[in-house]
């Protein structure tokens, strides 16, 4: 095994073969978290006692699961028994502690994985930067003066820094994909309704997804196979068989028609995003360029639904505890609560029309490539982006390429391109329920060493 850089699949294999114990692995992860987290600020809660007890149970059990001994952590909007589910906020700390774990935590632990902590995030998931006024900003492990990306900031940081090989995040408009891009790791935002959200604090019910983040495509597949399956506790979770991805992972890309998204997705890219996309497209021999129709309107409609549902969700807290929010989040939520209903209804009507248009595209291609973020990680506190001499606000523009995709729930694997000095991600977008296609492409790129999670020097 490869010390802190061991992948989940390698850890599980070592535990199966009794080359390592879950106790040793979890103790090493806890020691690494204690050493490096103060400078990175990825973890908000470390569950030392629970993790060590759980590791002992895994070591005692002769039946080892597919994730035996794999330490993992979760964005702190996942319920963890005994903790108030803070969702990056100050207000939620006053909630009664959760009485049980979120469904996806239980599923990973049923496969032998071990929860070691809860992770920093942007307040109430309304964030792409990883900045947090209550818990402190999460740092990018490749350059601590730079953003980790949000809102699953701690998930991106902890995985990239080798504190854990696997984390869970959530993605409403890009919150798995943006930190995966900035931190240089692999992230899977599955099809809307594919993985259970039961026991997670919501943001925008119409758009919320949850998924795994890791340092390889194989680990995403391994985690997905443990996570997928119907859950009656999440009304949106599909009652639909999920094929196991591990047996499909190494099938290669022969016969797959892979296109690059043009038009909207070509505009506004910084050179690092352009070069990363070119490298990935060349490695896949993806020569077709397609236009995703009305992507700008799709992004606008996602923005309006997000503001409106977010404002409605938090209305009572805005009435009673407005001054306890991060002011930037509060002012967006207040404005969101005031959006006329006619606009939200139209956005949902547009959503279905746009879905039909995009599904027609997938009759001609099997997957589409697009940037995740317009640039690599900006500096913490940076407010604007300057591209071709034009200055634009940073926060809303970090999601311009992710929002039109999650708007209609398409599955996406984000792959890290090790550009210098900072990595940047590319989206591999597949039709609904075809996580397998996106992951096969990610695996092919990884086997060609075109994409990989770079290892930061943490000192």
């Amino acid at each position: 095994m490869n010390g802190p850089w061991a992948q989940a699949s390698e850890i599980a294999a070592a535990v199966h073969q009794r080359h390592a114990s879950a106790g040793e692995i979890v103790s090493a992860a806890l020691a690494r978290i204690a050493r490096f987290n103060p400078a990175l600020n990825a973890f908000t809660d470390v569950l030392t006692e629970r993790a060590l007890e759980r590791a002992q149970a895994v070591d005692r059990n002769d039946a080892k699961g597919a994730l035996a001994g794999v330490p993992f952590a979760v964005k702190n909007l996942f319920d963890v028994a005994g903790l108030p589910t803070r969702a990056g906020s100050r207000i939620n700390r006053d909630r009664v502690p959760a009485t049980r774990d979120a469904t996806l935590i239980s599923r990973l632990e049923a496969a032998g994985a071990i929860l070691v902590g809860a992770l920093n995030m942007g307040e109430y998931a309304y964030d792409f930067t990883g900045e947090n006024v209550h818990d402190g900003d999460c740092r990018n492990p490749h350059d601590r003066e730079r953003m980790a990306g949000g809102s699953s900031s701690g998930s991106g940081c902890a995985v990239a820094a080798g504190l854990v090989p696997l984390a869970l995040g959530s993605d409403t408009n890009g919150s798995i994909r943006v930190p995966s891009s900035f931190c240089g790791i692999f992230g899977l935002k599955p099809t809307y309704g594919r993985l259970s959200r039961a026991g997670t604090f919501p943001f925008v019910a119409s758009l919320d997804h949850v998924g795994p983040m890791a340092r390889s495509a194989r680990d995403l597949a391994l985690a997905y196979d443990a996570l997928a399956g119907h859950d009656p506790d999440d009304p949106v979770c599909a009652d639909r068989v999920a094929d196991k991805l591990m047996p499909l992972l190494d099938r290669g890309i022969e016969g797959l028609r892979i296109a690059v998204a043009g038009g909207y997705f070509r505009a506004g890219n910084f050179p690092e995003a352009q070069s990363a996309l070119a490298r990935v497209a060349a490695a896949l021999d993806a020569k077709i360029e397609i236009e995703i129709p009305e992507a700008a309107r799709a992004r606008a409609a996602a923005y309006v639904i997000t503001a409106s549902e977010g404002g409605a969700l938090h209305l009572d807290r805005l009435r009673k505890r407005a001054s306890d929010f991060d002011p930037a989040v509060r002012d967006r939520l207040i404005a969101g609560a005031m959006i006329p209903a006619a606009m939200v209804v139209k956005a949902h009507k547009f959503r279905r029309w746009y879905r039909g248009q995009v599904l027609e595209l997938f009759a001609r291609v099997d997957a589409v490539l697009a940037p995740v973020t317009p640039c690599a990680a900006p500096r913490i506190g940076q407010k604007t982006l300057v591209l071709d001499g034009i200055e634009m606000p940073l926060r809303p523009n970090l999601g311009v390429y992710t929002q039109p995709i999650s708007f209609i729930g398409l599955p996406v694997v984000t792959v890290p391109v090790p550009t210098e000095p900072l990595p940047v991600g590319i989206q591999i977008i597949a039709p609904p329920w075809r996580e397998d296609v996106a992951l096969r492409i990610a695996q092919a790129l990884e086997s060609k060493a075109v994409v990989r999670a770079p290892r930061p020097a943490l000192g």
Partner: protein
Amino acid sequence: MDSHTDFIDAAARVLGLAIEPAWKDAVEANLAATLRLASAFMDFPLPDEAEPASTFTA
């Protein structure tokens, strides 16, 4: 863009929100940005029969 001050004051009353004077400019800027984005699809022609993409099934 016209000021939305009157609209914000009225909506805040209806919603039971107390907006402190120091927050008003930011709320207004956020509302203006959201309404500007809404205008990007509000004039997009769709038939009366177009179904919203809601997910509820009975």
